């Protein structure tokens, strides 16, 4: 059965996804609350996979929780922690429990996280994982063996439109298109002109691109991300805009910026949708949607 999310991608309407992060531990209360809050307001909800290499409740478990609540999950899957056998097995299990969408990522490096001495696996890379999913869909595992009961996934990938230099990223983007990516979610974008030129290039590959919208919760956060997070560049005028309001209004300003960015992307049909990442402030995603007019 085709995933609900895939039907939305094929419908041609502006697609909205957002993201929830499982907890460090088994107290799922807040996580489940975020699912309840967002599941009916977006087309699908990503579940992060040990984001920033910080060990957490697994994305597979998080995606199951979304299924149990009647939502549509996109299970993020990185190549950092599992070899090809473990990834394949988790995909079989995920499919058997109704998870139909997977986002393939390489995964952050181990030493940036909280288990600095752990082994980084990277038996596969994001592209090989994407192709593995297609091979499983064709009824065969990576050992060349036939599956007794197959899988059907809508598999996506990521791209970083602000990466410097951009050319090596674009080569990988094209390889992911050839590898069967059915959608792309991007790293955070703030510079619309730059993103427009990326889309002028990307559009010809005819794979839906959902622009990454990361809520700016303070000028400090914006500066920190620009300085420290690869592929994120917040233009100075946005930082000035955040610095220009009283402290208690900064979050509202961040929501406004996110909302108007989404509205601009939709109005000019720059891309096929957005992926909203509120990173710890999932409560305000409905406000961002309201601010965007969606």
């Amino acid at each position, binding site marked *: 059965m085709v995933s609900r999310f895939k039907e939305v991608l094929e419908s041609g309407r502006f697609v909205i996804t957002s993201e929830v992060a499982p907890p460090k531990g088994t107290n799922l209360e807040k996580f489940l609350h975020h699912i309840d809050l967002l599941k009916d307001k977006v087309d699908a909800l990503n579940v992060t996979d040990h984001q920033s290499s910080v060990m957490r409740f697994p994305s597979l478990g998080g995606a199951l929780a979304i299924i149990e609540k009647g939502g549509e999950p996109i299970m993020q899957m990185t190549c950092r922690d599992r070899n090809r056998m473990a990834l394949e097995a988790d995909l079989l299990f995920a499919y058997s429990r109704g998870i139909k969408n997977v986002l393939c990522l390489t*995964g952050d*490096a181990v030493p*940036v996280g909280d288990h600095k001495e752990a082994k980084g696996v990277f038996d596969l890379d994001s592209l090989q994982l994407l192709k593995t999913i297609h091979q499983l869909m064709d009824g065969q595992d990576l050992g060349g063996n036939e599956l007794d009961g197959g899988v059907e996934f809508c598999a996506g990938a990521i791209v970083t439109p602000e990466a*410097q*230099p951009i050319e*090596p*990223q674009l080569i990988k983007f094209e390889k992911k298109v050839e590898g069967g990516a059915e959608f792309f979610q991007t790293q955070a974008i703030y510079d619309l002109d730059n993103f427009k030129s990326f889309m002028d290039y990307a559009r010809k590959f005819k794979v839906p691109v959902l622009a990454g919208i990361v809520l700016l919760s303070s000028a400090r956060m914006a500066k920190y991300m620009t300085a420290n997070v690869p592929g994120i560049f917040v233009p100075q005028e946005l930082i000035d805009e955040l610095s220009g309001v009283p402290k208690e209004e900064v979050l509202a300003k961040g929501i406004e910026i996110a909302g108007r960015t989404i509205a601009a992307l939709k109005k000019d049909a720059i891309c096929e949708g957005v992926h909203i990442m509120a990173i710890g402030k999932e409560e305000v995603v409905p406000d961002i949607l309201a601010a965007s007019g969606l």
Partner: protein
Amino acid sequence: MKSITKQKSIEDIQEGLKGLDKIFVVGCGTCTTMTKTGGVEQVEEMKGHLQEMGKRVTGSTVIPTACDDMTEVAMKENEQFIRSADAILSMSCALGVHRMSLYLDKPVIPALDTLFIGVEETPGYFREACDQCGQCLLGQTAGICPITACHKGLVNGPCGGTNNGKCEVDKDKDCAWTLIYNRLKEQGRLDLMHQYQPPRNHHVILKPKSVKIT
């Protein structure tokens, strides 16, 4: 090509020598002399540390190349001093430790940790250039090995952690795929970067690895 080593902490060395009072110290005249971790000077210095720990040093030697058959010769020459020791403290790389353990049945305790096999790119600067994976990709990657030069060993292009040509794990480390891209571009061979590289075979030669040349 050199085996790159780093001296263990004095506390770790002391722990390794627990219960062993008489020590014979062995350095190496090749790699660890070059990296200043196990040459004549460092062996002398170590003898001082051992005496401070209350150990008795029965003797010492620096074998020209501790990983080959000269080791046996050097150990035979020093046999009486080694036999009177409780253990050998090795200031060679792990290859030397392995070799020394073959003769005289004395415990060999490493004073060094072996980090990687490095090439000396500029005087005193050693860099890992080969992971000995058994499936050389250098012809497709402009002579820059993505298995060793990329933190994640990625073979299909950069990850999203690349940042202005640097790696997400350390701003001082180059992104291998930016280097590969730049060099392939200069060579007019960017088509190679567009090629899909399938998952690698991690068992080209089964571990434990060995080969018999006939």
